[in-house]
């Protein structure tokens, strides 16, 4: 019974990992981009859930029961929008330079972390004003025919001007309205998302107790995976995405808008991160560092699963989740308690952090046997 119980918990952790790794795997498989800000996109999804929850709390208890149905698509949309901005403003310029992308996305992740810590109304005003002035100015100038010649001087004038006005406005509004404007929205402390009442119970099967939250997360993961599978296999844009994955140059020659495909892929991957954030917000407190806890595990899933393989990602996520839970909770140590030597060995690894050590060692050992992951890509393009 203990074993079944742990197995269920392990699978549910695997489900969280999978939903976190899904977006990463798609983006990495298609664009070859490692997005270190993926964890922060999850965090944005979690905070979106928090905001939606608070909004529904105001509407009353009856509404509150169903806020999740609204929170999940919101988390998807907000994270996808941030991801789209990220792709357009940063990553687009770095295709073909994966290591630089790694550094740039790390910078983005730092900025996003600090953003949720210190965002307040006065900062919001500043950012809004800056966007209006700078991007509005560029938009107006773009209508001129000689824009290409004007681009550099225009940016050189507009950028410091709008930055200056924005900072001045934000400081001024902060001084004018005091705390109402300068108080951070979320702060550095973690915030808590309350699951609605019907998610707080559990399903009892004999002596087995399955919390609804975990069942819900597993269900959500299944829906996401199925949705992505159907999208990639059945929709016209899915076909284009698969074509670009296989051969970017050839796809471009055949008239597939690869830039649009990239942007779309990145937005969808980010959106999935948002949903993952929504899921993890039910498991514990949400803070600016939330994403960091999941990101490396999610990467390990991608490495073990093999690039661009949905199925590999699924298997790897469930396997890593289950193994690390079985090790970390001490289940394996309890199972082999008859054999003294083995029991001592597994007891040493029977906590969450030591289980990580063991899982990493297992992954390195696994990569010795299958260096390219569970289901490696075949063909000549792989080594290029």
């Amino acid at each position, binding site marked *: 019974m203990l074993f079944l119980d742990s197995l269920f918990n392990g699978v549910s952790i695997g489900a969280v990992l999978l939903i976190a790794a899904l977006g990463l795997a798609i983006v990495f498989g298609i664009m070859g981009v490692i997005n270190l800000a993926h964890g922060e996109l999850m965090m944005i999804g979690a905070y979106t859930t928090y905001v939606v929850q608070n909004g529904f709390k105001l509407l009353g208890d009856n509404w509150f029961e169903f806020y999740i149905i609204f929170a999940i698509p919101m988390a998807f949309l907000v994270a996808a929008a941030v991801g789209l901005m990220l792709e357009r403003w*940063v990553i687009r310029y770095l295709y073909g330079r994966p290591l630089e992308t790694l550094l740039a996305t790390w910078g983005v992740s*730092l*900025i996003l972390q*600090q953003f949720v810590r210190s965002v307040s109304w006065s900062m919001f005003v500043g950012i809004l004003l800056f966007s209006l002035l700078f991007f509005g100015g560029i938009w107006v100038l773009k209508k001129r025919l000689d824009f290409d010649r004007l681009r550099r001087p225009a940016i050189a004038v507009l950028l410091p001007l709008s930055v200056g006005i924005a900072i001045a406005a934000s400081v001024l509004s902060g001084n004018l309205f005091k705390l109402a404007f300068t108080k951070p929205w979320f702060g550095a402390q973690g915030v808590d998302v309350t699951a609605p009442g019907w998610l707080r119970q559990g399903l009892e099967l004999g002596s087995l107790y399955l919390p609804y939250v975990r069942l819900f997360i597993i269900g959500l993961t299944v829906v996401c995976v199925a949705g992505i599978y159907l999208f990639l296999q059945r929709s016209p844009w899915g076909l284009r995405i698969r074509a670009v994955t296989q051969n970017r140059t050839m796809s471009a020659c055949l008239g597939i808008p690869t830039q649009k495909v990239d942007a779309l892929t990145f937005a969808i991957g980010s959106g999935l991160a948002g949903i993952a954030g929504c899921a993890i917000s039910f498991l514990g407190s949400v803070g600016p560092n939330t994403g960091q806890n999941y990101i490396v595990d999610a990467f390990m899933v991608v490495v073990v699963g093999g690039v661009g393989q949905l199925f590999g990602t699924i298997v790897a996520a469930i396997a890593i989740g289950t193994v690390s839970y079985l090790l970390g909770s001490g289940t394996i140590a309890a199972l082999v308690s008859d054999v003294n030597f083995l029991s001592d060995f597994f007891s040493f690894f029977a906590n969450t*952090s030591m289980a990580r050590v063991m899982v*990493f060692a297992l992954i390195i050992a696994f990569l010795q046997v299958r260096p390219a992951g569970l289901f490696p890509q075949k063909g000549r393009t792989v080594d290029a």
Partner: protein
Amino acid sequence: MNEDISSEHQEKATVIRQLYRQLRQRPRLTEAVTVGAIALFAIAIVPFFLSAFNLDLLNRYLALAILALGIDLIWGYTGMLSLGHGIFFALGGYAIAMHLKLQIPPDASSQLPSFMSLYGVTELPAFWKPFYSFPLTLIAVFLIPALLATFLGYLVFRNRIRGVYFSILTQAATIVFFNLFNGQQKLINGTNGLTDFKTILGAEVSNSNTQFVIYTLTVLLLVGAYYLCRWLTGGRFGKVLVAIRDDETRLRFSGYDPTGYKVLVFAISGALAGIAGALFTLRSGIISPKAMDIAFSIEMVIWVAVGGRATLIGAIVGALLVNYSKSWLISQFPDIWLFFQGGLFLLVVLVLPNGLIGWLKTEGINLLRRLVKRPRYVTTYPSLEEDPEVRRERENLGN
């Protein structure tokens, strides 16, 4: 008759060889003189002009510059982005810290490091024992990181795991080692790390004279590390490294086995990180698992990126510059300084991909020449660059 020609030939060859050697040695001589002068300046003059606090900062950052040299070797020259150098840095730091913790006066009530008695440890763990000896500690400072790097590197490179995969694996290793050190309260004081050092070789660690010796040692080791990297990258070995970076597959097809080279350079880089960690620990007086934070390991890379990859000077300049501005920014904007750090990452990658030194070498020098009204250096055929017709065409095309 035949012999005559050949001897004449040889004579010519010797002359040419001598000339070539002279030409090659002249910049090296200038460089050696410059490096020596800077080192002498740093040791003999700088300490008298800086306050104790600033000298302390300088010393720490010089130690970090050694680390940056190692990163430059592996990332700048070999093209492998390691996000796990915090491990090696921390291992070097822990090695020296363990030696310092074992400097217990013989009349003390307990012959164990103070934190151990707190957790009820009665006997010194076996792996602490070698650190009683100072020479063994000195060897451990660079040997342990180098051995670990060799082990990890061999397992990874043997399977041709590279690029972002390598980065991810090293990043995961950082988390693993962080957990490993963080969880072992009894053995190495877990989260709190090792701190509160008293004496080294009989001298007090916090004494200003000792600290000056450490400073001098740091400068000398930095010069040594610089010359080691210089020597490694200057010759055939360095060419292979660059070849690995630029096209590893082609190198393999030319009959080289990149694995050995990669393992070796990873080990050397790890050893440099270990030395840096030891020096840093001596000066800051603490080593904790925080040194194995992912953020710190990625920061190191950005020092090199700011200074300029594949330029050894760039690594040193970057480490000093970024760290100084970091401590300044933290003191000025403690609340929002992460914005600046994140912005720096974006700025360097997007706007200044070659770093400061790289920019100076390419565009900066032309900018300077334009200021003094000299023609710009051209990288392609000068005739083509100067051709008015070509120039007009380019302007019309808008680039």
